């Protein structure tokens, strides 16, 4: 076993040596889970890539492959980028975690950055954004905007990142509207306009007049527009083409500063494996313009909430909070620690339904 893997490494190192000779530009690779035109998650990562190109100009070369399935295909795409001489590779979906670690082992001199995962190595960093801070603002607006008191939520996969968002949105909707109820549909996809539209339609038929989404396309916005009086929020990207209504605000992932900083670190030789989790304060999470469809006082409160998080004065998960089963979670004034948040696998009190498992 050992001998075999030694052989593999030797073979690949040989290839690497021949590939890395004539190279002065820093080469940065991006692996995307969706198409760059998804208008959401991948679109924003690609904007980050373009920002890297803008910032460094001739000193950098970027490459990308889009719509890469999570699994052996991702491993091959990453290996290919490393073979072609990439110095830094961003792998931008949770499902790329094991492939990233596998490829990183074979290419110890290439730096890898995996989005939203938890496995690190000497040459693998992980990074993610505190989307749940944006969800707090969204929940606040949603709780105020709903008339039917039913808020629909399109979940992608029941993983901690998504569950955190649901909890955060619910807590803040409930604060301003004690009668509010969440209906959650799991789409089991990050990007599938047809499925997302179906999910939105089902939620609207069940009486939801606000739709929150953790999927990447604008299909739910289109479904809401068709229904007429349903409020939505842009996800990952601004989705401003649906403003001022149904899209009344958005959570925007701004990866550009992080991508530029990490590329710079590789150029300077100061790159180190890190675990980055930035939010509104650092600018990785932004709140898109709140439109005039939202009453002025609600908008003001929402902006105040955002400012409080930016200043580090407010944490979206502040006690007293109980878990769904009624057991105590956070005491009065206590805030959730990052460890619990990172692995969050429970709903807070008041949410109905079970997390699929």
């Amino acid at each position, binding site marked *: 076993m050992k001998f075999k893997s030694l052989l593999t490494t030797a073979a690949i190192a040989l290839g690497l040596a021949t590939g890395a000779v004539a190279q002065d530009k820093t080469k940065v690779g991006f692996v995307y889970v969706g198409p760059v035109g998804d208008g959401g998650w991948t679109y924003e990562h690609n904007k980050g890539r373009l920002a890297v190109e803008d910032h460094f100009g001739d000193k950098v070369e970027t490459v990308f*492959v889009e719509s*890469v399935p999570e*699994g052996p*295909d991702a491993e091959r795409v990453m290996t*290919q980028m490393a073979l072609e001489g990439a110095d830094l590779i961003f792998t931008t979906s949770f499902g790329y975690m*094991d492939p990233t670690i596998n490829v990183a082992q074979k290419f110890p001199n290439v730096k890898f950055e995996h989005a939203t995962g938890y496995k690190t190595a000497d040459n693998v960093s992980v990074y993610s954004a505190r989307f749940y801070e944006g969800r707090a603002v969204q929940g606040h607006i949603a709780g105020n905007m709903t008339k039917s008191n039913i808020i629909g939520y399109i979940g992608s996969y*029941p*993983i901690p990142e998504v569950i955190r968002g649901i909890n955060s949105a619910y807590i803040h909707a409930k604060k301003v509207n004690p009668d509010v109820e969440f209906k959650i549909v799991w789409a*089991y996809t990050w990007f599938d306009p047809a499925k997302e539209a179906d999910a939105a339609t089902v939620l609207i038929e069940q009486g939801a007049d606000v739709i929150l989404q953790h999927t990447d396309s604008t299909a739910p916005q289109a479904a809401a527009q068709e229904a007429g009086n349903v409020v939505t929020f842009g996800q990952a990207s601004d989705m401003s083409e649906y403003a001022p209504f149904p899209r009344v605000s958005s959570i925007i992932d701004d990866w550009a500063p992080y991508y530029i900083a990490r590329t710079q670190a590789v150029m300077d030789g100061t790159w180190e494996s890190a675990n980055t989790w930035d939010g509104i304060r650092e600018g990785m999470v932004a709140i898109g313009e709140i439109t005039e469809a939202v009453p002025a006082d609600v908008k003001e409160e929402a902006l105040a909430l955002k400012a409080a998080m930016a200043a580090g004065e407010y944490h979206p998960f502040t006690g007293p909070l109980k878990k769904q089963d009624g057991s105590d979670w956070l005491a009065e004034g206590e805030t959730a620690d990052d460890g619990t948040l990172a692995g969050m696998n429970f709903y807070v009190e008041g949410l109905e339904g079970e997390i699929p498992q």
Partner: protein
Amino acid sequence: MIVLEKRPQPSKAWSYATPLVAVLATMVFGGVLFTILGKNPIEAIGTIFWEPLFGEFAFYYRPQLLVKGAPLVLIAIGLSLGFRAGIWNIGAEGQYIMGAIFGAGAGLAFYPLDAFYIFPIMVISGAFGGWLWAMIPAFLKVRFGTNEILVSLMLVYVAEQMLASVSLGLLKNPEGFGFPGSRNLQQYDSAHNAELIAGSGMHWGVVTALIAVIFAYVLLNRHMLGFHIRLTGEAPRAAKFAGVNPARLILFCLGLSGALAGLAGMFEVSGPSGVVSIDFNVGYGFTAIIVAFLGRLHPVGILLAGGLMALTYIGGEIAQSKLGLPAAAIQVFQGMLLFFLLAFDLLTNYRIRAARSEVA
């Protein structure tokens, strides 16, 4: 005026020539597409077809062709037997998923035991899972005369839900911090479908695919059952007089294609993929249908077609990252291949003739 005239006998020459003509036409029209996208067509097509085989990093891509092609060939071989007899299993993707679930489930049940018999048990379980899933449309067709195309296709979506369910529940990695997905079988030696020779891409799935090609060839050419399969497809009435039992043939063809698809899923999950996850399936079961037809439903043809398909996948990825071609353009390119194949297929059964237009 040009008219189509049916040939008295399908042209043997054309049936061999059409795949080649289709590939050439795809290159020409694909080249036009790439030119419109502002890329050098020679370079783009060269990257797709040349780079994986003879490029600088071919030492890595060639083994990857086996990894990518093996499940396609294995599934397509099973499908081709049914297709020849007019039995349409469209749900190989679902059988592939069930094979993976059964195979991985059997392996994980032994975790962390270290024993030589675990992998063979997984192989049998994987084949059984796929077979079982294919037996549903087979049984319904034999017993109630349902349409196997619809039933097998619908069961794909059921299988996808099962996959999501076990990824989140039954097979979830207890040490995975609540994230969906099973333990990684690559890190469990007794259950790992490792490369037989490091760096060669040869894993048990590749070996099985090659055995399946030989087996199918012998079956179709030397065995009574193979004769029955061909006869049923080509002349159903004659088959009846020859004493073919249609129910048995349906059970056999669907069962075998299901078992092979299940094996493909099992070898994939225990080898290249490693984990049962919600997005485990990436469409091999559907692509295999294209491979089966591209290979003229002939075992050797399927072997070549599987290789060609794998080549366009891997070459397509290289073209994306090296030349900045969009993924959609690569998919259009692959679609063209099937389109032209079916289009030129016409020439096997018809000939084009210039006819005088007659005054009515």
